[in-house]
């Protein structure tokens, strides 16, 4: 019961070879300098960029296998992504941002709202429920983005530089909060970071991507 990814990931002109495996219930940190392809790996797992060669399997189910012309659409992958730039929907309030994924997967409105309130409470953001993203601070937006992913109870949780847009105090708080939340989720969690301290504090495994040589 693991995630296995090996092959060539590509986004735009960029491509590189990777080999990553991850287990449920633990956080795997993907470390590397800027431009080493960390985010591209997450995009490939989420189904936003197709794998060029190789194989991606989760729980022995093939998600992406170019050789077999097999590719599972993003909505069938049970993934949830927290993007580096968060990407909250600017025209929706916090509650509708969080219920979005649940509603998209067919969960009824009342049940989705109840789960959204639980997720907001979990990340300590219950008071933000009716606010629009434009009226949130960096730390608040981060909490909402995390709640939006957690509420999905995903099989694979993908965190792209999850502390990139928070101040030092919030950073410390998140460093304590995240392992607790992930532990309860029992999901395969991959966290992209370039911060060694974050990786050591949160992740139980580390994968280091070497800098990509320019052609």
């Amino acid at each position, binding site marked *: 019961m693991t995630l296995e990814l090996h092959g060539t990931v590509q986004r735009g002109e960029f491509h590189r070879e990777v080999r990553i495996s991850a287990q449920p219930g633990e956080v795997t940190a993907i470390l590397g300098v800027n431009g080493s392809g960390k985010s591209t790996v997450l995009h490939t797992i989420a189904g936003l960029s197709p794998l060029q060669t190789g194989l991606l399997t989760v729980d022995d189910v093939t998600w992406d296998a170019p050789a077999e012309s097999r590719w599972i659409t993003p909505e069938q992958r049970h993934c949830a992504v927290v993007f580096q730039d968060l*990407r909250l929907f600017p025209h929706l309030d916090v509650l509708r941002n969080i219920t*979005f994924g649940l509603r998209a997967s067919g969960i009824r409105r009342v049940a989705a709202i109840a789960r959204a309130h639980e997720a907001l409470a979990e990340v300590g953001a219950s008071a933000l429920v009716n606010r629009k993203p434009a009226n949130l601070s960096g730390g608040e937006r981060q909490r909402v983005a995390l709640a939006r*992913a957690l509420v999905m109870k995903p099989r694979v949780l993908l965190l792209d530089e999850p502390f990139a847009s928070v101040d030092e105090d919030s950073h410390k708080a998140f460093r304590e909060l995240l392992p607790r939340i992930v532990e309860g989720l029992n999901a395969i969690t991959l966290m992209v970071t370039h911060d060694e301290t974050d990786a050591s504090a949160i992740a139980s495994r580390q994968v280091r991507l070497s800098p990509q040589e320019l052609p």
Partner: protein
Amino acid sequence: MLDSWTSDAPAKLFGVSDIGVTPRQLKVSRGTSDKVFRGFILAGALFSLIVLALISGFLMYRGFGIFKDFGFSFFTSSKWEAAADDGSAPAHFGVAAMLVGSFVVSVIAVAIAVPFAMAVSLFLEYYAPYSLRYVLTTILDLVASIPSVIWGIWGYTILMPHAVGWSKTLNHWLGWFPLFDVPAPIFERSPFIAGMLLAMMILPIVTSVAREVYSQAPRDQIDAAYGLGSSKWGAMRTVVLPFGKSGLIGGTMLGLGRALGETVAVYLVLNLVFKVNFHILASVGGNVASLIASRFGEASPYELKALMAAGLVLFFMTLIVNFIATTIVNRSKVPS
């Protein structure tokens, strides 16, 4: 950009706005090339305003006598009668029926065209393979360039015989509703048929605008929707459609503007009757533009004034539509 510093921004920046400090005014001295360019674009902007003012001035000058003679009844009366040659019957002019007709036909056109335009533009932008997109876009551009008289002939000879059958079906099933009721069983040259024809005529422009705004929907927001397990349609509904809302309204209003002013095509497929009519399947209708086209050639000098006044009303109606469109577009912009 430098001009914006004449605001109180610097004062606020240094926290002195509340203690009565007057913001500093900056004087900007511009170079010659900058001055020439400013003058050039200012002249361009003023030119369109001058043309607009000249048109309205001309129409007002020529049609003012009619407003003086008939007052508000010019807008509320449906009677359009030139004076008898022997002077036995005085002239009477009113555009109420034509105004209502313009409105009804244009609303039908927009109601049919907009859903189609949305579907076509979403398909072209997000679903169609590149080669098909290229072919369909070229065809749409071609359709946009068809002259309205050709549309009118096609509407009269091809569309109308089919549309009469559709009208009868609508009347059969929905005739209990006043909109689809007909006083007499004549279904040719109705507002419904004219509206359908206009819908086809405005479809390319609305589609073109919609496609343009949908193509600019933020890719990262679409990816965010996918990243939360959304289907393609879910991403369209949550990101693309709200993002393109203001642009679509703008495109719709452009289409509405064309529909309101369309002349020849409507004249060929709509029975010009001076009677306010909301039965869209009945062979009774008209619009201001086709009224002017139909009467212009044989109008007496006095009726010509009435037609100028009708033109002025159409002109202001279009301006009001554009003003409303701009207001709606500004209010419905999605924050980025």
